[in-house]
């Protein structure tokens, strides 16, 4: 039986969780790195999404843009995972039960699924349509969904503490 709430209790009592929670500067410092990670991750995905929407960098082949941008997206995502986990560990039980936090996790999962779905379908034939005047519907949907989902993630992140009891 998976006792996640019990695991959260354990996590926030660890030396790591405790020191982050009790220190005056540690939490803000980790949060600052989390902010920088937002720029790396959302910045990278947005550049790709705008290309898929046909808004900018229209002459750049999608494979080329992906090769340039994806490393930064992965660095950004890893940064967010690590800093996010550290921030989570400080107040695990309160955050875990927060419905805004759960929505944020769902939105992140949805963004990942959206990227995977696009990669497995429309993107397979990218060389056929990337020079079109107007991007195919699949690309535009993927691009717009991605932007909206990541915006949702950032907003949800800001609102996590808002409804704390």
């Amino acid at each position, binding site marked *: 039986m998976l006792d996640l709430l019990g695991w959260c209790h354990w996590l926030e009592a660890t030396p790591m969780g405790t020191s982050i929670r009790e220190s005056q500067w540690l939490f803000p410092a980790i949060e*600052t790195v989390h902010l920088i990670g937002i720029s790396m991750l959302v910045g990278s995905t947005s550049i790709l999404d705008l290309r898929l929407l046909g808004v900018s960098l229209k002459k750049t082949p999608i494979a080329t843009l992906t090769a340039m941008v994806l490393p930064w997206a992965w660095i950004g995502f890893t940064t967010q995972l690590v800093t996010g986990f550290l921030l989570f560990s400080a107040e695990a039980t309160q955050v875990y039960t927060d419905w805004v936090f759960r929505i944020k996790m769902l939105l992140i999962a949805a963004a990942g699924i959206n990227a995977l779905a696009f990669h497995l379908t429309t993107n397979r034939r990218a060389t056929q349509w990337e020079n079109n005047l107007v991007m195919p519907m699949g690309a535009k949907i993927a691009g717009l969904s991605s932007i909206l989902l990541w915006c949702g993630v*950032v907003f949800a992140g800001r609102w996590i503490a808002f409804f704390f009891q």
Partner: protein
Amino acid sequence: MVDVIFHFCKWLEQTPVGTFMRQSSWAFPTVESLHVLCGNVPLLVSTSILGARLTGRVLRDVPVSRLVAGLLPWSWIAFLIQVVTGSLLFSSAASRYAATAIFPIKMLLILLAGANALVFLRTSYRRVAQWDTAPIPPLGARIAGYLSILLWLGVLVMGRVLNTAVTLVPISVNLFGR
């Protein structure tokens, strides 16, 4: 001078906008999210890419003028968004923000970042035709690149520290000691 600033801040806080930003439960977090998402992200991304190119370490095969033409509009729009959202956030508790040591530092860093860009555009960039496609730009451009990255990161860090500074007792409370 301090008097003028103090009275302006007090006046700003009491305006309908300032009052709304302070009293509404959802306004501040929403504007703050926009400040991060629509301001921080495009501003940091555009200045970082351009700055990185100017250091001569990455994107060496891309002409500098092409990056400047493509990225500067994004920087400008993002900066405008930061000024608007930042002013709204500031208006909620103007005198408290102004009384911290952090707020003037953040403003100074923004000024320096702007000055750095201006100096670059008026000097090294004037002669860009000569070094546009060179993998490593001239010294002035390289310095401008490193400075840009450092200064804008500094602004982001100061912004986060400001959050903490304003909720604690203002450090220089004597600045507006009444």
